[in-house]
């Protein structure tokens, strides 16, 4: 019996060796020092064929490759208006305490040293993101599409809120679909991501939107529900950092065509779950920012100055 087992192991060992030997990978896609990536939406970069070919044709060090960790501009639009409008869509049942906290957060984010990090991003005309955010509207959606949502459903929820007149059609807006703790987003909420941003066309306009779910039920550890949390509302406190992440990426890379690095990481991705120095609040929680008198634990953000770095403020 032992001999059979050893023989089997040997066979598997040989099979594994073959599977992972270089000859078995002879047909793999060409990947070299010129290969460039862009965000895939799946947590890893996908090859940006155009940028890769440009780099190969140049045949030498491209300006974007001077620092492998640098975030670079890919010619797409950036949100540079005097203020960025944020719209909340409360999907499902929310406590007044959680709503109050997230309203306070967004109402005080603009003008803060934290959000000022985003002013280091600009468009092709050297127009910069402004340190101003306006919570310009809110709508409520009482589970119109159920408790199991697809990516397409998130866009539909935004579209429905606009078509119903609950929210305006605003190309300078970021529509945030905030789902309650009993709602799942089936493309990977909690197992791959805690939130995401994207853009779509509604009434012939380019509309930016994001999904951020209350992770209390599905991924309390993976999406940062702490106990204690700065404001005693674990789910909402956790969402704050993800909302900051998504909004920062939305203004600097609204159409997934502006600012990201060679691995496809946007400004928020490069510092995800990196909080920097923290302090302890009166209830024993960790926090690193104070906005409008409330404490929050927010990830750091990539500062696009010099070779760049993750910072709490600018």
């Amino acid at each position: 019996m032992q001999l059979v087992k050893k023989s089997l192991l040997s066979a598997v060992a040989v099979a594994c060796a073959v599977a992972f030997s270089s000859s078995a990978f002879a047909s793999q896609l060409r990947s070299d020092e010129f290969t460039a990536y862009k965000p895939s939406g799946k947590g890893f970069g996908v090859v940006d064929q155009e940028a890769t070919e440009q780099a190969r044709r140049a045949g030498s060090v491209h300006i974007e490759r001077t620092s492998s960790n640098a975030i670079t501009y890919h010619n797409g639009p950036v949100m540079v208006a005097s203020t960025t409008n944020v719209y909340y869509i409360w999907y499902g049942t929310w406590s007044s305490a959680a709503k109050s906290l997230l309203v306070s957060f967004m109402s005080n984010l603009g003008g803060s040293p934290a959000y000022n990090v985003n002013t280091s991003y600009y468009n092709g005309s050297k127009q910069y993101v402004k340190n101003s955010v306006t919570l310009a509207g809110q709508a409520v959606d009482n589970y119109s599409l159920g408790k199991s949502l697809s990516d397409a459903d998130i866009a539909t929820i935004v579209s429905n809120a606009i078509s119903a007149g609950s929210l305006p059609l605003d190309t300078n807006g970021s529509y945030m679909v905030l789902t309650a703790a009993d709602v799942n987003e089936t493309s990977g909420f909690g197992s791959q991501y805690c939130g995401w941003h994207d853009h779509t066309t509604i009434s012939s306009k380019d509309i930016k939107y994001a999904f951020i779910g209350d992770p209390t039920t599905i991924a309390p550890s993976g999406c940062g529900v702490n106990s204690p949390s700065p404001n005693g509302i674990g789910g909402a406190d956790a969402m704050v950092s993800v909302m900051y992440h998504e909004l920062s990426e939305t203004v600097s890379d609204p159409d997934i065509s502006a600012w990201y690095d060679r691995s496809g990481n946007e400004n928020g991705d490069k510092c995800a779950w990196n909080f920097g120095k923290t302090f302890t609040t009166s209830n024993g929680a960790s926090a690193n920012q104070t906005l409008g008198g409330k404490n929050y634990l927010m990830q750091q953000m990539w500062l696009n100055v010099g070779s760049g770095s993750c910072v709490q403020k600018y």
Partner: protein
Amino acid sequence: MKHTFVASLTAMLISVGVYADHAVGGAITMTRYVLQFNELEKTLLDAQSKHDIPTLDELLAPAFEVRKSSGEVVIRKDWMEQPVHAKLSDVVPSKMVVYEIGSYAVANFRLAKPGDAGGVFIVDVWVPDADKWRLRARFESPAQ
């Protein structure tokens, strides 16, 4: 009973994993677990390739075992001693998905050389042990 549970868990995870692969078209905030277990898997892979027994011993739970789609079971001691690990040095995990199931973390991902469409599909069950994670079981099948 134990085998039934393992089979059910595997079936569930694979079905969910396939579904989860239809991810969004925009840009995501990865979960902390995806980042954390991506690093843990890389550490494990590095220890395998270097035949770093002390690190493997730390990362693998005492009852660790590998179950393959062929039905073969490789126990901890045999897996640690496999002589093919140096061939894994440039293989990387991708398409990482991590489920929180109680205090356990279940990671599934593809293991292959960058740019290769093949490799193996893996489901790892990690269990908390004091302040660290240890790998309890691995389910392995060829990636399509």
